[in-house]
């Protein structure tokens, strides 16, 4: 149905001492959605999931990459292969035919009837000066899908379909409750009979009891009309209820994608594991292992090198992208704290280019500490060797790509190379 290939969105951040920097909101995301499928995109705030959703229907222009719309599956596969092998010519051929990014003017407007979006906050996504009926008719009229009396009739039918009385057509958004507004937003999204609907956090602003109503409504529509959906949410339980496939994002990158049951019950990427284990469950007293991640998601202006997740990853190893600064910080922490009795006061830890200098310490005792702490403090795995003069050499790193873990799942982690 729709395929995004190496999609990128960099937002410029001007000012500051360093000049213009780029915030990599979405970086090299490849995602294909088949017809009739519900793909859930999960991630924490700032992971780029909303930006991705907006790019998919061209509410935002991507900085780079390609989106193919309504291309047959073979063509998508061919395009991906062409990209991987560097066959520019055949990639160009396919992209000319299906590219959403090359569509302009009336052609794009026509495509707009085939895709739509439901936003998170039903309080700000409906124009307070429009009557409900006008809200629902607006997309039909602006794309020229239907007009006049026909559009009116369709809008009234839709109201009924989303479970609201027809009389609501003459009301204004402020007269409706949150759940009712979200129903209106869904009716508006469905007004041009789209094949693809992007749902951006459709239930996060609603109460639990109403959330269940909306989710069931969406499920019902999906069954009846075979609509393809991309469901963007931070709520993993919602994704597990709605989606067929799940894509997990972190810091603008795709971490793992695969069938819902695989990803949610047998996660492979360390981040997905931690994410799923930290979802609270309504089972008091249930004994389970929760992986609590240290620290916070990284600053996207200067993301960590190598794998973006490595500084928080409990399974990271030597090639994940450790820098001298990261290693130095952890060693300093050990030297000052836990191993203070071994090293004393006069040790200085200085990060250099891909090396860490530990002044005033005996290389043998450093080696011993590394040996013991390696299991817990993952950055220490990056130390390749300790030289005679207590210089710690750091391993070279590798950028992880999306690796096929099995037929239906890809994971962006070096563990699955």
């Amino acid at each position, binding site marked *: 149905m729709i395929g995004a290939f190496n999609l990128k969105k960099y937002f410029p951040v001007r000012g500051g001492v360093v000049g213009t920097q780029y915030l990599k909101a979405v970086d090299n995301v490849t995602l294909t959605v088949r017809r009739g499928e519900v793909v859930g995109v999960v991630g*924490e*705030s700032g992971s780029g999931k909303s930006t991705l959703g907006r790019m998919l229907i061209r509410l935002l222009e991507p900085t780079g990459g390609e989106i193919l719309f309504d291309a047959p599956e073979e063509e998508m596969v061919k395009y991906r292969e062409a990209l991987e092998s560097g066959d520019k010519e055949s990639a160009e051929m396919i992209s000319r035919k299906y590219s959403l990014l090359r569509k302009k003017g009336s052609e794009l407007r026509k495509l707009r009837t085939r895709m739509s979006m439901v936003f998170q906050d039903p309080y700000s996504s409906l124009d307070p000066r429009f009557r409900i009926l006008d809200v629902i008719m607006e997309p039909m009229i602006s794309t020229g899908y239907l007009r006049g009396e026909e559009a009116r009739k369709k809008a009234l039918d839709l109201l009924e379909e989303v479970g609201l009385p027809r009389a609501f057509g003459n009301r204004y958004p402020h007269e409706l*409750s949150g*759940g009712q507004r979200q129903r209106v937003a869904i009716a508006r999204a469905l007004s041009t009979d789209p094949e693809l609907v992007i749902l951006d956090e459709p239930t996060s602003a609603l*109460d*639990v*009891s*109403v*959330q*269940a*109503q909306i*989710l*069931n409504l969406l499920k019902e529509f999906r069954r009846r009309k075979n609509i393809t959906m991309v469901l963007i949410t*931070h*709520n*993993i*339980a*919602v994704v*597990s*209820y709605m989606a067929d496939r799940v894509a997990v994002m972190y810091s603008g990158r795709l971490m793992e994608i695969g069938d819902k049951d695989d990803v*949610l*019950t047998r996660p492979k990427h360390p981040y997905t594991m*931690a*994410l*799923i*284990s*930290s*979802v*609270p*469950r*309504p*089972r*008091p*007293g249930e004994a389970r292992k*929760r992986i*609590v*991640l240290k620290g*916070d*998601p990284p600053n996207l202006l200067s993301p960590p090198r190598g794998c973006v997740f490595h500084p928080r990853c409990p399974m990271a190893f030597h090639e994940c992208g450790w820098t001298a600064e990261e290693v130095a910080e952890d060693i300093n*922490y050990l030297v*000052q*704290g*836990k*191993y*203070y*009795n071994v090293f004393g006061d006069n040790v200085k830890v200085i990060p250099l280019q891909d090396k860490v200098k530990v002044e005033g310490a005996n290389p043998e005792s450093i080696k011993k500490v590394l040996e013991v702490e390696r299991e817990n403090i993952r950055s220490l795995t990056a130390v390749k060797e300790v030289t005679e003069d207590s210089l710690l050499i750091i391993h070279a790193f590798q950028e992880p790509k999306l690796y096929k873990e099995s037929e239906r799942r890809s994971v962006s982690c070096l563990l699955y190379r």
Partner: protein
Amino acid sequence: MERVKERAKVLEIKDLRVSFHTRRGVFKALRGVDLELYKGEVLGLAGESGSGKSTLGLAIMGLLPRNARVESGEVLLDGSKDVLKMLRDYGSRDVKFDPRKNEKLIKRLNKELREVRGRALAMVFQEPLTSLNPVLQVGYQIAEAVYYHDPMRLVRRAISRNRCTQADLRDLMTTLKTKGEEALIEEVEKRNLRGLEEQILSIWRRQDIHEAKKEKLILSLDKHKLDSKDRLGISIYLRGLQRVPVLGRLAKDALIKEGYRLAVEILTYLGIPHPEKVVRMYPHELSGGMRQRVVIGIAIVNNPEIVIMDEPTSALDVTIQAQILELVSSLKASSNRSFIFISHDLSVLAEVSDRIAIMYAGKIAEVGPVKVIFEEPQHPYTKMLMDAIPTMDKTELKAIPGSVPDMRSPPKGCSFSNRCPFVMPKCKEMEPPMVEVSEGHKVACFLVGERK
């Protein structure tokens, strides 16, 4: 269950009724809430938006806005202190409600409650960015909380550290190592160095550093002497001259400076890396999880008995939420504090609470131990709520039809009657009373009373 009964009540709420007078009518936010909180427990307060759970939190703190009328009820701290007495005396009178008059009372109440807040009660709000002051350093905000509630603590800390000698510290260190923490506190009293013990213990209780390092840090406490300006400031404070314009500033500066030291200790305790740097930062420089830790730090710095947390994790991501929940559990374990944890997310409450109260339309629908509430809920609303929460293993969600009633004119009888599948004629006529079905498990529904 037995243990719950033994515990002392720290807070008791009796038949609390609060309504908000607005231009669009009188909203009855709380309609007769009875609840108690025991020492050392986490009470989860669940409910949808508009159920009155936040209003209840604010009412306990005495932080109601001017248009809130306390119609009846009591909030008893430690079984005696009636927090809302002043407002209730006005609100229960049968006169036309005047928000301006109420506001004056609230101002008086605030002055009176300054004593209580901080030391007995503290609150953590949902959005950490709005509850922190953006133009003040994090350390200052923690220091200020102590400065206003317990300035003498800062004075004691500063003076005791200034007075102690290396010999004192060595002796105290041996006492601590051989006889333990209580003996240390006694020894400190004996040497007239009160205020030093918390500084020693905050280092001693750290988990992240080696014993030798702790010892060294404790022994170097006497190196941090006061400079002449701070000494002057503190002596001004002790002579009661803090209200004199210029001198007052000197006194406050000295005490706040001491507060920064305390802030570093608190932040270390809360697991914030590089606390010495963080206290000099402004809220916008911190991430959401760190900000929430700072807010929790401000709440617990005065060692309150009760901490009310209003949706403390709702604005955070799941992985950060997990960190904060972990922190709350460890705070509960390490002290005998009681928490009221308000959340709309039942799953979060299942993780942290000992007991749960479910609110609906300004009343408690059901209250009981967590296990009972999740495994054998009795109230139809609780049951339906459980079926409506999406979880990772559910394949079907049963939505609750309809929506919350308009609180300007709540329905007669049971407020859930218009959405309840088991509704009976009498539900529309009378309000169901709270019935105790088992030890500590109370339900407000006729179905339960019937069966008994």
